[in-house]
């Protein structure tokens, strides 16, 4: 490839074509450089400095990263992020798949159910979180009021160290499950009818058909949703900010919230930038890992 391009570059006509090409992509390139590449470079530089919001900064090399390695709160936050991700991703994917199986059939009025589950995706995350915060309230919350009807004394959902994270996970799953469901419905409806007929002729039951026909055929979509959901859950912030502010006792403090707190509450910009780069590499490594593993389990990829 490279050699070919080089050869083509030689002609004056080709050079002009190249200039035009660069000009055509320049708006995007300009935006990318100014709004993404430059801030990222600056953040990398900040992460190597002791950088208060006001006043001068001081180059400290890798000290911020060394501090992160021994910061007990960072490891707690890291664990919380892992807890959130491991709690949310399987729950979200399995629920989305189950809903998709239920709702992929074309029955009368099925649209209403699909819409009902998809509407939260379109709602503002902040509004959704505020509503759930009120529903989880200890005495006056809807959930505990409902439990009261059955004479069950509900817990202090968002103020109990063991319950706050599951509560946030449930809120987040219900918010976003609709998106994955829609993707699954589309994938399921793409599976060729002839495969089902063949399975039926071979005497496969419903479970067998699902595991041996439907699931393998939609693995590209499963892969896509898993990657997107993992990245999304590593970057969770809004729900935490609204519902728990990282509490009680740091039990729901996740990485992005910690970055925000360090940067905009405690004004340790350098340390916050270093944390952001740690998150960047975590996301990068996880995505590369998933990409590698894809070859093992993703089936039916068009161009493979």
């Amino acid at each position: 490839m490279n050699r070919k391009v080089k050869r083509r570059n030689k002609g004056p006509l080709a050079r002009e074509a190249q200039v035009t090409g660069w000009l055509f992509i320049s708006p995007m390139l300009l935006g990318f450089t100014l709004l993404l590449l430059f801030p990222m470079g600056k953040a990398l530089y900040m992460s190597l400095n002791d950088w208060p919001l006001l006043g001068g900064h001081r180059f400290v090399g890798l000290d911020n990263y060394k501090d992160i390695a021994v910061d007990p709160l960072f490891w707690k936050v890291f664990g919380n992020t892992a807890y959130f991700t491991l709690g949310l991703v399987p729950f979200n994917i399995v629920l989305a798949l189950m809903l998709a199986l239920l709702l992929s059939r074309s029955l009368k009025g099925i649209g209403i159910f699909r819409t009902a589950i998809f509407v939260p995706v379109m709602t503002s995350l902040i509004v959704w979180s505020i509503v759930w915060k009120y529903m989880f309230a200890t005495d006056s919350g809807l959930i505990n009021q409902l439990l009261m009807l059955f004479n069950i004394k509900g817990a202090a959902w968002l103020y109990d160290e063991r319950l706050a994270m599951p509560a946030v996970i449930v809120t987040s799953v219900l918010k976003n499950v609709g998106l994955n469901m829609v993707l699954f419905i589309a994938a399921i409806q793409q599976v060729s009818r002839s495969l089902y007929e063949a399975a039926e002729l071979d005497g496969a039951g419903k479970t067998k058909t699902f595991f041996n026909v439907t699931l393998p055929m939609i693995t590209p979509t499963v892969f896509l949703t898993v990657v997107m959901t993992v990245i999304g859950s590593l970057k969770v912030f809004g729900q935490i900010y609204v519902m728990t502010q990282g509490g009680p006792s740091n039990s729901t403090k996740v990485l992005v919230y910690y970055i925000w707190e360090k940067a905009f509450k405690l004004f340790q910009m350098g340390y916050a930038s270093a944390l952001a780069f740690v998150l960047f590499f975590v996301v990068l490594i996880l995505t590369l890992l998933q990409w590698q593993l894809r070859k093992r389990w993703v089936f039916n990829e068009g161009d493979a």
Partner: protein
Amino acid sequence: MKKAGAVLLSAMLLGLTAGCAKPAASGNAESPGKQEDVELKFLMWGNQGHMDVYNKLISQFEADNPGIKVTMDSVPFTDYQQKISVLAAGKSLPDIAWVSERMIPQFKANGILADVSSFKDDASFNLDDYIPSTLDLFRDGDQLLGLPFSTPPVVMFYNKTLFDKANLTDPNTLASEGKWTWKTFEESAKAIAVKDAGGRVYGANFFRDWKTWAILSSYAWSYGSGPFNEDLTAFTWNDQYGVETMELLERMMYEDESHPKAGEQISFDAGNLGMFFDNYSYVSKARDIKGFEWSIAPMPSGSAGSVPMLGQAGYTLFKDSKHPEEAKKLLKLFASQSGIEATSTYFVPPRTSVLNSDAFLNQPNNPPAEHIVQAVIDEMPKARIIPGHIRWQDIDNAVLQGFDRLFGRSASAKDNMAKMQSDVEAILK
């Protein structure tokens, strides 16, 4: 064709960059040159009532100073310090702003506050009218880094109608007889509370937004102790009185169920809350209450009497203001006798002449004047201020986590206080 495309594109790009540059250029044109273009920015955290008072002052100022325009912005108190810090970093600070005692150590350390000590020599301003102790917070060597407009002690707002319903003597009467103790307070709260889900009534609430733990310092203060030592170098709440504070709150929340549980939004003006602690400035909201009778009373007392927490708020100017002279003029109006008189509708005035005037006491819909004298003016000499600290945010976080443990019932009051002490002292070191 290709060439034309390239030219067109570069023209578009040029236009784009020029478009970006434009606002900055016109921004420059605004400064000194033309007189009528001066715009002063005033930042505060007040509510609509406060803004109405300032709008009157501002239109008076604009009439007296043609060519100067003042714009006022309000930012919620919880975000305020953060907002100012970010604005300072972005070099877009307002010209004049409210600050509270919490924020001053940080802003002092950042070196962003402007000196206003020249008011000392201004006879018409009469700085001597200010109660000297109210200026302490703003002094820095010979410099004066701001002027107070409000020095409110925390008072107890109570719902008289609920007290009557529960056949209780009101706190003002008890206080004047010296019987308004923490024990009576706790019992009153229990008597007022109604646990039915339908007509739920709470006895008392210490928390405005589940962050105002500092109000609880009064318990330890009233027994001669307190959360911190004088200069905030040691955490002293981990003693008998600190533990008792936590136990009191625990009993009220979980045994008597007279205090709302963490996260509940129970507001005093809704009428289902017996007692509520807040700065005197909350009268601005309470005056609109229609459904029940209310008044204010002193904090409950311990063996050393009653000790409320004192808040302080003032005006400051910023060093890199583009219009320092005009900003000073506006400050002079806000902080003058007539300015302080106007804001005393809502704020406890720092000027002796205004504090002792009938105008402060007899506002429409105010609680009875004798209650204001009892709960505010007589309490002020005893009031304590929590000294500021450059790492206050961290300290605040550590203490709030202790309250999280209490709300989640994951630690006994004793262990909780011990943990709080080790967390806070790690920051103070």
